């Protein structure tokens, strides 16, 4: 008789890495659709190029490691599809074809595969790819924002500026758009995926329901950014919504910062980490007057080991922090 011999436990939860990654892809679909509706076929071209080159890079890399193509197909876990999608979504639809291609190759080959592949990268590949694009192709990246096809923004914003940069440099009164416009993305300029916050919100809710991420993680980032921005602008709550509805913070908070691999391990560490990330975004935006979300995520990714070291869960049965403080106080009194 043939029976399977394997390790305990013999019953397992149905969820696998592949399922999780597919869930993330499903959660990104609304944003992809919104991007294509807003920016036309060019957006689709950018997304296709970046996803295709991400997957191709991983394939070529595995061939270089002398792995069989069949093995590649069997072990393929869709992480490079997500990298490609996120990278494409964080680019403008007007970029030339080589920008998504080269950034995707950089993101997958250098940032992910060189460090050991899935689960071993120390920074988020998509974010790193975007930063790479910004630095390597500065001219095309900053000059060419496309207008979304909807909305009434003729002349309300200076050429070459996003809503965020004008808010940052001239204050919220110069925005010329309602918060609803910002939320729906009508009449905005910007990256393919960052425009329609509604689509991202749907993705967020999906991830929360499927328990891929805890729903409060992006909320922590957004609230910290919003409140810090308000605080930095002398408690002017007019900044509250624009600060989170403009720029890349929404996409970053929901999909990029919550990436498993580049987040701390325990839940408490995650809470603190996301709070720090949100605050840092607001502070650096205020100081530099440009969009900094991807840089901040990159920076915070590098600090993950510190968070892991400081915030460890209290072992069941070990004295909690409260009890420790009490014991310390009791000792002092005894002295």
């Amino acid at each position, binding site marked *: 008789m043939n029976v399977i011999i394997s390790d305990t436990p013999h019953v397992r939860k149905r969820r696998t890495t592949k399922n999780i990654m597919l869930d993330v892809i499903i959660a990104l679909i609304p944003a992809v659709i919104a991007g294509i509706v807003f920016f036309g076929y060019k957006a689709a071209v950018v997304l296709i190029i970046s996803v295709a080159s991400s997957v191709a890079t991983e394939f070529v890399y595995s061939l270089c490691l002398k792995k069989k193509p069949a093995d590649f197909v069997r072990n393929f876990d869709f992480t490079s599809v997500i990298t490609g999608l996120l990278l494409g979504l964080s680019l403008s639809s007007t970029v030339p074809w080589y920008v998504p291609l080269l950034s995707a190759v950089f993101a997958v080959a250098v940032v992910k595969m060189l460090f050991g592949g899935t689960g071993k990268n120390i920074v988020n590949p998509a974010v790193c790819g975007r930063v790479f694009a910004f630095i390597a192709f500065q001219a095309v990246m900053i000059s060419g924002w496309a207008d979304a096809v909807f909305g009434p923004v003729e002349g309300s914003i200076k050429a070459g500026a996003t809503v965020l940069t004008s808010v940052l440099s001239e204050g919220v009164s110069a925005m010329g758009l309602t918060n609803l416009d910002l939320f729906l993305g009508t009449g905005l300029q910007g990256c393919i995926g960052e425009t329609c916050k509604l689509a991202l919100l749907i993705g967020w809710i999906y991830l929360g329901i499927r328990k891929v991420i805890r729903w409060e993680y992006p909320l922590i980032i957004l609230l910290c950014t919003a409140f810090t921005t308000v605080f930095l602008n002398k408690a002017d709550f007019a900044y509250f919504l624009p600060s989170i509805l403009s720029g890349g913070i929404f996409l970053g908070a929901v999909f990029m910062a919550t990436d498993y691999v580049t987040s701390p391990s325990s839940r408490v560490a995650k809470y603190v980490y996301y709070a720090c990330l949100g605050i840092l975004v607001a502070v650096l935006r205020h100081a530099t007057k440009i969009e900094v979300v991807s840089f901040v995520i990159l920076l915070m990714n590098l600090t993950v080991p510190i968070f892991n070291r400081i915030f460890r869960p209290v072992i069941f049965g*070990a004295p909690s922090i409260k009890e420790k403080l009490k014991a310390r106080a009791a000792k002092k009194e005894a002295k």
Partner: protein
Amino acid sequence: MKIRKGKFLSRGIRLHDMKFLAKDIPIEVMPAPEIISISLGQHIGKPAVPVVKEGDFVYQGQLIAQADGVVSANVYSSVSGTVEGFEKRPVANGAIKDYILIRNDGNYMYRPLDPLPDRNKETVIARIREAGIVGMGGAGFPTAVKLAPKQTPDTLVINGAECEPYLTCDYRLMVEKTDEVAQGIRLIAKALGVTKIVVGIEKNKPDCIEKFASYEDFEIVVLRKAYPMGSEKHLIYSCTGRKVPVGKLPSDVGCVVNNIATAYAVYEAVELDKPLFERVMTVSGKAIVHPANLLVKNGTRFDDIITHCGGLRDTTAMLVSGGPMMGPCMISTDLYSGKTDSGILALDSSETDSRNPSPCINCGACAEVCPMHLLPMMIDFYTQARDYQKAREVGGVDNCISCGCCSYVCPARRAIVQSITLCKQKLASKG
């Protein structure tokens, strides 16, 4: 009647308990086969020393191997017949142990132990030791040792959680032998010298809760349905609100934990003068033709038990000895039952999952469910890197109870429990 809800255990996992397969099937006596093979190492500690020779005639209930030291247990013959010889054979987890072979004459000539003159603390403990009773939940720790802790306990906690999926042997005992189990619990309490008895029962056994609630001297705690609710430390926390400190034993917080099957064995040993040579086992799983709860004599071949239950279906994918969370896989059915075997499971491919591991994606699911609040992914990582000290420091490997929750949830199908076991062994061998 005292019923209260147990303290909420925030971690752990919720499983499909699959108990419906064998839950409503009454305990049935499994006829002993012609040849039985009784292990000398059915407990933690040194194996027992045989006191019979080849060719000897033994009665059912006769001592055939004597405990060697304190942490060891007597072994009794489960049938009457002649001793055929001695042999070495592997147990389910692969370790090689000594066995005594006895040819069953089919007469079941039974010789009980000498009747107890009176029932005080000392005589009950002596009887428990004499009858070879061990913790029947799976650990196999001699009960007599457990009942004489260094610190005087004030509470006896009875583990009626039975949190492992599929297993229903304790449930059946609670339903069918309620009075006997209750009497056994009282005897254990007497041996310990405690008056406070807490019985923890999981919420999915409402009929047991109802039955036990009729006893005035017990406090019934309704536990949340979660795995590992039956782990000593978590059971104590849920039942009494006390946390066993890191590196300490339950007796340090004044608690002693025993399970239902052990209580029943104590009842039999003290009231009926019957040594421990048979126990209730659950035979379950979707690949078994007739799931059952059987009263199995020690040393019965698993193959015979499965045949008695109608055999295996063609869809059998895996055979497990014990519960599916902690029990080892069986390579063959050529194994023999013992005091600690709570079940045999035949799982089909829809129930089990043995995909190959992939890289850790640091999703943190294992840390979210770890009932000991450890960082299993860190232990796994450092063990793979052969840095065992770091695994101890960062992950807290010493506190692991090997419940398997981390491996259960791991989306990358990593063998985290095995990593932890390896790490513990390496740390122990280094000292």
